[in-house]
């Protein structure tokens, strides 16, 4: 049984309300930070904890905070990125829906560390009901003196505002989010300057994921070093994984990053195995934009080691044989799923969500979608596979923001690992309309080169 830090009290009835939350030991971290610590000490504690950003990129949070420019007389801002739009990711929604005070508490502590007097939650428009939950939590916190002027008599002022997005995936990119928050069209900005220097209204800004900010609470309560003891290597602490797809028990799980992928999928504590007695074919371990892996590479790395649920192990082998932890959207595909159709669905999503600012992403995503639709409909040509590869190669790394990469990686990985299935779709167009390629050899043990 892994240790839980974020969701350990999620099952308690009415934990959503302030009284219950406070009774269960809530807002201790705020008391500790504001009364006994300096802002720099909180940041140091974050550095010691080794917490990595939970939004997808995995950048160390303590480091990000220490990069924040602190010029005199200029306000600084903390913005919480609750624009959780990655297909397959729904962990922040769970957190905000069930224990909203955890986020508010984390925000107060983080804002204190960063010196932000006004902090924002940018939430995706589709989470309309969560806005009400958060507003209520903020009001409760305010009534009890955790927000407003002179918090706990320390002279620190803080207000938290909730801003709804209008429903665009691109606004989850931090600079697009800031543009949108300023009331403009959500186009990503060109970096540098980074938000840590010029962010919201040209002031230094830190943008963090909901889960990252929530993790500040246990880190301050228990101490950074204590937190760093959980997990393996540079993957410290616990991580929320939102598991979905063809598994028996879909849902949000908190793991302490010491278990293997195999255990996560098959143990009854977590996903409970593949549903309907089918077999595992492929899996996207970190949300739709990370590379998809076939069953054999998912469970063991190319070196023949067991793959663990950590940042390092999931990325082992680079993109050739590995993937990424990403945002923790764990999508499992069984042997009845078609990788071509699946890739087409993702390509359609990215085409729809591209902001259209820079040309490779604007034109390339649409092109890839059309070619994939042709292949899926049995009208593809063999040369289309190489063409897709060439298109994704020309999008990746050449765009303003990571959406271009996110659109290119799934297509690249699907072709890299499932080329046989694409070719089968093209050579057997009629067959492909009636049945699936099936599991094929994707779960076969991989050949491990022995080193002498």
């Amino acid at each position, binding site marked *: 049984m892994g240790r839980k830090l974020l969701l350990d009290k999620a099952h308690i009835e009415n934990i959503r309300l302030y009284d219950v939350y406070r009774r269960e030991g809530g807002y201790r971290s705020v008391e500790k930070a504001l009364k006994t610590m300096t802002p720099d000490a909180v940041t140091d504690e974050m550095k010691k904890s080794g917490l990595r950003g939970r939004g997808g990129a995995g950048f160390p949070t303590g480091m990000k905070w220490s990069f924040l420019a602190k010029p005199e007389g200029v306000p600084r801002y903390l913005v919480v990125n609750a624009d959780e739009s990655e297909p397959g990711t729904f962990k922040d929604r769970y957190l905000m829906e069930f224990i909203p005070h955890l986020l508010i508490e984390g925000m107060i502590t983080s804002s204190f560390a960063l010196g932000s007097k006004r902090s924002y939650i940018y939430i995706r428009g589709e989470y309309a009901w969560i806005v009400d939950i958060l507003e209520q939590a903020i009001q409760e916190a305010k009534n009890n003196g955790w927000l407003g002027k002179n918090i706990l008599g320390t002279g620190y002022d803080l207000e938290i505002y909730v801003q709804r997005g209008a429903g665009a995936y691109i606004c989850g990119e931090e600079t697009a989010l800031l543009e949108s928050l300023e009331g403009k069209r959500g186009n990503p900005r*060109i970096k540098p300057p980074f938000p840590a220097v010029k962010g919201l209204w040209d002031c230094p800004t830190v943008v963090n994921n909901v889960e990252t900010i929530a993790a500040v609470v246990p880190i301050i309560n228990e101490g950074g070093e204590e937190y760093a003891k959980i997990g393996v290597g540079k993957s410290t602490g616990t991580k929320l994984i939102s598991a979905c797809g063809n598994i028996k028990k879909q849902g949000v799980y908190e793991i302490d990053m010491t278990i293997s992928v195999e255990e996560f999928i098959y143990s009854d504590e977590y996903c409970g195995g593949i549903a309907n007695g089918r077999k595992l074919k492929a899996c996207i371990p970190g949300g739709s934009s990370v590379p998809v892996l076939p069953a054999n590479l998912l469970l063991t790395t190319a070196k023949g080691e067991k793959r663990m649920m950590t940042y390092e192990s999931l990325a082992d082998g680079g993109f050739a044989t590995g993937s990424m932890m990403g945002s923790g959207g764990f999508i499992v595909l069984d042997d009845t799923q078609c990788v071509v159709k699946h890739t087409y669905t993702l390509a359609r999503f990215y085409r729809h969500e591209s*902001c259209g*600012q*820079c*040309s*490779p992403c*604007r*034109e390339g995503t649409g*092109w890839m979608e059309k070619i994939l639709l042709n292949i899926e409909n049995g009208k593809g040509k063999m040369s289309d596979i190489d063409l897709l590869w060439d298109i994704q*190669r020309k999008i990746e790394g050449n765009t303003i923001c990571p959406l271009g990469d996110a659109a290119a990686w799934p297509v690249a990985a699907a072709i890299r690992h499932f080329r046989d299935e694409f070719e089968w779709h093209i050579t057997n167009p009629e067959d492909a309309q009636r049945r699936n390629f099936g599991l094929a050899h994707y779960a076969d043990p991989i050949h491990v080169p022995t080193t002498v």
Partner: protein
Amino acid sequence: MFRRRYNKKKERIFNMAEEIKKEAPANFKVTIDNITIEVAPGTSILNAARKIGGDVTPPAMCYYSKLQGSGGKCRTCLVEVAAGSTADPRPMPKLVASCRTNVMDGMIVKNITSERVQDARAGVVEFLLLNHPLDCPICDQAGECHLQDLGYEHGKEGTRYEFKRRTFEKEDIGPYIQLHMTRCILCYRCTYVADQLTDNRVHGILDRGDHAEISTYISKAIDNDFSGNMIDVCPVGALTDKTFRFKNRVWFTKPVNAHRDCDKCCGKVTLWQRGDEVLRVTARKDEWGEVQSYDGKPGWICNTCRFDKKHVNDWMIEGPTKINRHSVISQGHYVGLHKPKETMPEVMGGRAPKLLMDIHDVSDVNSVDISALPGPATSKTFEKTNSNGKQ
């Protein structure tokens, strides 16, 4: 009242330009394709390369030096940074947009000497042309179109795109400017013009992704005194002059510099004439296809000068315009031809370029001075060289 508002506007335009004019002492050394140049701190890689000129300069479709905040979108100006600076000589992992990346002391940039850049640029050009209608034969921009130049220099002969190209409904945005969204490459330049030159922006980008379009909301007409400059900054034929529409091909018209006393703008323009008829008035362009600056102030022109003064009598003629970059226009009149700097020997670092075949070795045609012959050249003229050849 009106006059005051215009003056205020003028002031704003000029103040904006003042910032461009300000130049710190040049002391950053940057090497672009083996050519080292000293530039002021805060200069972008693209502007440093423009100081060198020639082939070394990356193409730019969306960047416009006179419009603040433009650039970074089209990705044609991507370059490789092989060394970040003297202090931190690590290379940058990704290709960077040279228009929005500032130089550092000791930076080493690779443009035409980098295969990665060439490959990525070919990709970007392909992407830009993917949904472009290529209706150059009926497009007023043909001959002075940046996309045409770009395609000519970097494009492939065919396309790999096998689907229907994207089209848009035609939209009327006012009496002077024709919007043809199908041709647009979404460089955002015209929105910057509206933001920075006119009183109020009434057009912008609607929707997103490959279905994004430039439009006015609910077809509101663009009617503003400096709106015509959108036509000048548009790199393609998406925004064209309604008063010039289908009147003539640009290369049949004769560009003439002229000026008039205008209380709204600088009044310095180029007249595009056919005979004595003034077909079109535009701002004067520099060698990068941008509006020319006078003492660091961009020479934007007002709509009165652009659309209403179509008689030779309205203008003081200065003389023929020196056309340099958009060479198709200068076909037939080569007055003041400006040749860009020949950078190849420096880029190659003294090495000779690899020749597949020296055509002069094979044919010896150039040994005959054709213009010195009394009549037309015939096969007999080359008999001597033929017998000396490999026969």
